[in-house]
């Protein structure tokens, strides 16, 4: 990677939303991430690229997999990684997001990886700090690294994104994963469908560049990829679906419903899964499932993002 190290890949200082990045930038990130997949499969995984750089993972919302994925990514690139779980500490003492961010910013981190339960919170924070900010999920808005790792998974399995039929199924309304994926897959030329009961679709979804389906038979027909979403029971204020039993009956992915899709279609899930609600264990653990591969790609993608952003920092990465 020595040759490409100094080549800028991203225009911006931050990675906040897939909506803001161009198809070319996405391609470049995916290509770089592909190389990190190979690095991660070697015995010696460390790469001195970000030695002396500080990465703070600022999580205002509980997370296991995303936070550990970012942590491993940073550590493999030799950054000093610190995790801050603020969900229960400073905020409960009346400190605002910005106060917390400014406090950490004053310690001169190079990267701030932020997750927050409110849409737009990461953007707000990025306006006020001097380091590079990576959005690790803001409310119901975007989760850009998830979309990138999903794209990397699909591309490594099926060889391309363009022209594929991707069905995103379930709680689109509350899902930042869905929004980022819709942007990214459209930018790379896939045909995107959403499949959900109308109560779990955001208003104006027809104008997002997707085909909208209200049942799995139509939505999955001939699909190359079936992307299941977590039913965000914790985000639901009020009744969106009558019960998880009813939801499973009509929208839960089991072997029977998977038959609507193309033979061998990929089954994906951003995790954590509600087994028996949106996805059946047989399918989640079945031969068509690439769910664990998504997790592997996650580390590589996050390394690529940190690498790419470091090229925009004055002084850049270590050479």
């Amino acid at each position, binding site marked *: 990677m020595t040759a490409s190290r100094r080549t800028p890949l991203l225009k911006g200082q931050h990675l906040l939303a897939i*909506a803001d990045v161009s198809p070319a930038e996405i391609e470049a990130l995916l290509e770089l991430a592909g190389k990190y997949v190979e690095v991660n499969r070697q015995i010696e995984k460390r790469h001195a690229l970000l030695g002396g750089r500080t990465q703070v993972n600022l999580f205002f919302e509980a997370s296991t997999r995303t936070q550990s994925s970012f942590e491993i990514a940073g550590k493999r690139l030799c950054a000093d990684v610190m995790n801050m779980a603020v969900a229960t500490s400073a905020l409960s003492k009346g400190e*605002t*997001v*910005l106060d917390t961010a400014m406090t950490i910013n004053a310690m001169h981190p190079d990267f701030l990886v932020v997750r*927050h339960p*409110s*849409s*737009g*919170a990461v*953007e*707000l924070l990025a306006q006020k700090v001097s380091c590079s900010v990576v959005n690790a999920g*803001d*409310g*119901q*808005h*975007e989760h850009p690294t998830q979309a990138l790792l999903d794209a990397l998974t699909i591309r490594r399995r099926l060889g391309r994104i363009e022209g594929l039929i991707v069905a995103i199924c379930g709680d689109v309304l509350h899902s*930042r994963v869905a*929004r980022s994926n819709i942007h990214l897959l459209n930018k790379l030329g896939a045909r995107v469908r959403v499949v959900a009961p109308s109560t779990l679709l*955001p*208003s*104006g*979804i027809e*104008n*997002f560049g997707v085909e909208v389906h209200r049942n799995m038979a139509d939505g999955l027909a001939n699909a190359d990829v079936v992307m299941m979403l977590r039913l965000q029971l914790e985000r639901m*204020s*009020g009744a969106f679906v009558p019960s998880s039993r009813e939801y499973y009956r009509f929208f839960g992915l089991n072997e029977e419903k998977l038959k609507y899709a193309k033979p061998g279609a990929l089954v994906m899930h951003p995790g954590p899964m509600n087994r028996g609600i949106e996805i059946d264990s047989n399918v989640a653990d079945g031969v068509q499932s690439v769910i664990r591969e998504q997790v592997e790609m996650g580390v590589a993608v996050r390394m690529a993002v940190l690498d790419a952003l470091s090229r925009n920092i004055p002084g850049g990465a270590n050479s």
Partner: protein
Amino acid sequence: MMAPAHEAARRRAYLNAHIVAPAQGLNGKGGILIEDGWILAVGPQVTRETAGPGTAVTDCKGLTLIPGLIDMRVFTGEPGTEYRETLASASEAAASGGVTTMIVMPNTQPAIDDAAIVDFIMRRARDTALVRVAPMAAITKGFAGEAMTEIGLLKEAGAVAVTDGTKAVANANLLRRALTYARDFDMLVVQHIEEPSLATGVMNAGEIAGRLGLSGIPAMAEVILLERDLRLVEMTGARYHAAQLSSRHSLDAIRAAKQRGLPVTCGVSIHHLTLNENDIGAYRTFFKLSPPLRGEDDRRALVEAVADGTIDVIVSGHDPQSADTKRLPFAEAAFGAIGLETMFAAALGLHHNEGLKLERLVEAMASAPAKILGLETGRLAPGAPADFALADLHLNWKVEDDILRSRAKNSPFEHRTLEGRIVETLVAGRSVYTYSL
């Protein structure tokens, strides 16, 4: 600000202005003659010759003279959250925007739901404010939506209307009783029209909310409550005012009610006439308003409805919020924007760019609220208080923190250049504001 000449001469004349006073049918060159805070004469006949000897004279060539504006929807932080705004600081903002009467909302801490608090507001205003202040009082005790306030006593103390301000009275039976009771006192009932169970979101429901991942408030939340309320007005015959319309669908309901002869009026905020949901952009919280900014179709329909008189009143909706309530993620930030200082200038934008007649705008910001609230101001007529303002319709100015006199700086027009502004404001014949660069 008081010119020494004022004390020397009790009589003062402002001459050669372009006078716009729709309630008096004035729209042309003329002057105004005042004495001891009252208007003696107004119109083309007031000239240097007719003003008489010993009259201090100001030449207003190139300026437009309008009645002092009456802003029917102003929030302050007094009592309770004075760091946001006091009656004094709000009145300074009002003066610089040509507003000579502020109708303050009862959403304070404690709430204005008791005659003693009304009295407090009146005394504080008398002692500290540059402009006239009249409060609206709550409809229900503590805005709890359970028990009716003492409407008769509140009126006696000086409340000009009852409203729960930022909250709607959701219980239909309670509102019905309040309307019935208010009618006996000829008290105006003002309602924030949003069905609370539908209005749980943070911006207009629609594609933009969907993309931003923000929860939406559908326009029908407004229409449903408005239509219900209009039926209650029909039942009770009370005078009812819908505080702020945001949706084009509400206009049909208002038109139909007016056609049926119901004693109904309505208002719109200057922000809903000049901005739309696209202005929110990347989660800009200064554009988070209640009711929410809606689409461009709605905005245009609202402008038309002001032009044709379906909408009676334009308000600023002035709601001072500090950084700690606005510099937050969008969903967590407070609703509201300041507007006292920019209302007239922004309205002029509608005149300059969208052909709205100036006399109609002045009517909606002065004589119409005066009529609805039964105030003696808002008109330029002999015997009326000398509350008026002078405006330069084409003076460009930039809305920046240092020019804003409000204690809070949450203006959606920040950094924008507006065409036209108030250059002098008089309350009871006394100059309370003069523009200087």
